[in-house]
């Protein structure tokens, strides 16, 4: 038996198929995975993401600590509630995890880290926080719901006290706010508008039932994966890990090499790579032949080089197969993918594939 979120019994009641995900017993689908995917693209869906770990940091030197810990620069966070996406690197520039950090003013900063890496992350953070006098608090008392889709915000605010509705609807993208006992953030992992809501564990089941009653579909990790891949978003452990660096993972935009005086973990390694040029890059692929791209399939490049698919699936929105692949830097516009011994043609594209319900790839 794996770890369970406060919503586990409800998932069972809703006939979810439960799978192991990073040591957690999580719902992969309730009915049709494709149906759940379309619900999020066309209306609204709710996901249990309570397996992700909320870590609150406090202490006067927290900004200095985070500027050393993270490859992106929290000095960019000027306004209360603003969020930043960042990698946390090891000294070799390998990606320990990708995370979101929220600036919460005087109360400090909030990190949201991945489920599969949470124990490793918290140990890594604690080991470095002590020297700065930063307090690290794992918020195992919180559950987290992601409500996503074009109708998600309008539905989700109906769960809030009337006095908080305007404040929730006024949230800018990629920012969050504490409203009573709930922290509501306009973030997500689907390429649609919506909220991620961190709330006391005991509120999770009633909130889920209320969302269902408002017509928000229960959605599992299966749909979450096809949605994030269409949105061109990386999955830690698939598209990057400790053995890969941000420049070969489509994450150069998250590395703040300026200002040069900021000494963050992994900086030395990344500077060397930036100077020499990364030998590999992460690209999007669209399969032109029939079939389904899957992780670990071999990608053959025109000049004899080779790469590998890091995430692949059938895209329900595009009705064809798409993937992320790590390939040699000089890879051109066309590649071939080895699927069970057959070489199929794929086109190299720049993700995202789908955004706000609209196909960006023809």
């Amino acid at each position: 038996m794996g770890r369970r979120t406060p919503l586990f019994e409800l998932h069972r009641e809703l006939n979810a198929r439960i799978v192991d995900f990073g040591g957690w017993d999580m719902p992969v689908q309730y009915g049709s995975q494709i149906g759940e995917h379309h619900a999020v693209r066309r209306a609204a869906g709710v996901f249990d993401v309570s397996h992700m770990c909320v870590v609150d940091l406090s202490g006067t030197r927290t900004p200095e600590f985070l500027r050393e810990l993270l490859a992106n620069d929290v000095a960019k966070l000027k306004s209360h509630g603003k969020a930043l996406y960042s990698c946390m690197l090891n000294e070799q520039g390998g990606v320990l995890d990708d995370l979101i950090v929220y600036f919460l003013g005087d109360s400090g900063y909030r990190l949201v880290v991945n489920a599969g890496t949470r124990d490793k992350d918290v140990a890594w953070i604690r080991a470095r926080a002590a020297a700065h006098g930063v307090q690290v608090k794992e918020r195992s008392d919180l559950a987290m719901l992601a409500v996503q889709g074009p109708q998600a915000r309008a539905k989700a605010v109906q769960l809030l006290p009337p006095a908080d509705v305007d404040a929730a609807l006024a949230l800018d993208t990629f920012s969050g706010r504490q409203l009573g006992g709930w922290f509501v953030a306009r973030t997500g992992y689907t390429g649609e508008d919506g909220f991620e809501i961190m709330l006391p564990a005991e509120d999770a089941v009633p909130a889920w039932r209320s969302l269902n009653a408002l017509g928000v579909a229960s959605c599992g990790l299966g749909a979450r994966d096809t949605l994030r891949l269409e949105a061109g978003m990386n999955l830690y452990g698939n598209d990057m890990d400790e053995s890969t660096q941000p420049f070969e993972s489509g994450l150069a935009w998250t590395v703040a090499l300026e200002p040069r005086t900021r000494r963050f973990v992994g900086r030395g390694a990344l500077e060397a790579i930036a100077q020499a040029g990364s030998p590999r890059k992460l690209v999007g692929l669209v399969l032109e032949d029939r079939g389904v791209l899957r992780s670990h399939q071999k990608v053959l490049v025109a000049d004899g080089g080779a790469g590998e698919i890091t995430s692949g699936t059938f895209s329900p929105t595009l009705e064809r197969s798409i993937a992320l692949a790590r390939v040699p830097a000089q890879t051109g516009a066309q590649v071939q993918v080895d699927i069970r011994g057959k070489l199929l043609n794929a086109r190299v594209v720049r993700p995202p594939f789908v955004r706000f319900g609209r196909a960006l790839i023809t």
Partner: protein
Amino acid sequence: MSNIPADLRYTKSHEWVRTLADGTLEVGITDHAQHALGDLVFVEVPEAGRSVKANEPCAVVESVKAASDVYAPFAGQVVAGNSRLTAEPETVNTEPYAGGWLMRLKAAPGSLEAAQLLSPADYQKLLDAEGG
């Protein structure tokens, strides 16, 4: 609860076998199998004329989640693959025992007997043992 038609025979790897009027054998995957796989998005069936060995992978069914092989339940020759599934793979989900058939085979002499196909009751026992 899975649908297990009484007039078919089954394999431990969740294929079903139907004997057609002309003696040809039609093969598909069971309701249990299609349900476990989820929404199918791609199906590859063998071409007519291909010879297959017993337990040889000869078709592929892919759901959003994963690809799975379908095995020849017995040795023989492919008479036809179900070309409808190229455009409509979801037929395997909606009608696994009818329009969702995968291939029609002519059994090699003695191969059907050697295959030791399961009765509906024995297939039900297999599912019960697997917790399905």
